[in-house]
């Protein structure tokens, strides 16, 4: 796993709903890399998250047992090279783990011409709690290339999850 740095930002939203409270869990500058040469069509990139939300919950005074719901709030991708997204048609984001069915969480298709950032449309139905109670999660990105290329591809992503916990 190649990452320059990862910042986990926690912001506990004071406005709570009934006995539940919402916590935002942000993964900043997550790196997805596919080593070239790459072929036209879908290319898979993975990022492994270990014990993802333990610190976040602990700082907010909660435990995993209190986790009620997890949903993807936003996912924004950027490229680190000058070519940008010109060679890519689409990006999808999925979550996978040992004991939970792989789930599609967001997509952008097509990526607008000349885009510097790709903001995914996120699923409103995908319930991700079962992933986050496990020790290891894979964030799986599929990027559709419009033609073969020799160079590697590298994306950076800011991914925000909304955790609902019971008080």
């Amino acid at each position, binding site marked *: 796993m190649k990452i320059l740095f990862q910042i986990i930002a926690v912001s506990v939203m004071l406005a709570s709903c009934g006995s539940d409270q919402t916590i935002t869990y942000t993964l900043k500058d997550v790196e997805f890399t596919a080593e070239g040469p790459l072929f036209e*069509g*879908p290319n*898979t990139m*993975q990022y492994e998250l270990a014990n993802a939300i333990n610190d976040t919950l602990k700082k907010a005074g909660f435990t995993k047992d209190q986790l009620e719901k997890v949903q993807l709030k936003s996912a924004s991708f950027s490229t680190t090279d000058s070519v940008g997204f010109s060679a890519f*048609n*689409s990006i*999808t984001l*999925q979550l*996978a*783990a*040992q004991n939970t*069915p*792989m789930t*599609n969480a*967001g*997509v952008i*298709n097509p990526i607008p011409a000349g885009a510097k950032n790709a903001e995914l*449309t*996120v*699923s*409103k*139905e*995908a319930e991700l709690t079962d992933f986050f109670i496990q020790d*290891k999660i*894979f964030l*799986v990105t*599929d990027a*559709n290339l419009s033609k073969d290329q020799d160079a590697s591809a590298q994306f950076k992503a800011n991914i925000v999850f909304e955790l609902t916990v019971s008080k």
Partner: protein
Amino acid sequence: MKNLLLLVLSTFTLFTNSISAQDQGDRIIGIWEPSNGKARVKVEKIGTRYYGKIVWLKEPNDPETGKPKVDKNNSDANLQNVPLKGYRLLKDFNFKSGNEWDGGTIYDPENGSTYDCVITMKDNNTLDIRGFIGISAFGRTDVWKRLQTQKK
């Protein structure tokens, strides 16, 4: 000394068995073609499980829109734009033993339905893909062929 030797031998045996099981499971990795020849599916490993995504479509464009096919039958409106090229229709398979991978599902993009699924490797280049609802006895089997032929 004798105990130490036994410990080393048993550890080595466990280690080699573990590697062997992993190699056995990885035999499914590759590019496969369903019997209808409409698609090609690349099986790969994520973590310890196996997944298959569409990498080629005989008819990549939707005749109604003229644009690349998308998962228009997805029940989640926000995901109906997911391209079928790249779509994982085989998900979450564990290598059981022998020639079987189970615990997974297969998705039919033509009707948006997901079925339980068991995969049996008949030989290195042939898979029986059995989709079913609930009980494996009531289902349908399709034969998939490996695209790049390996030795039998």
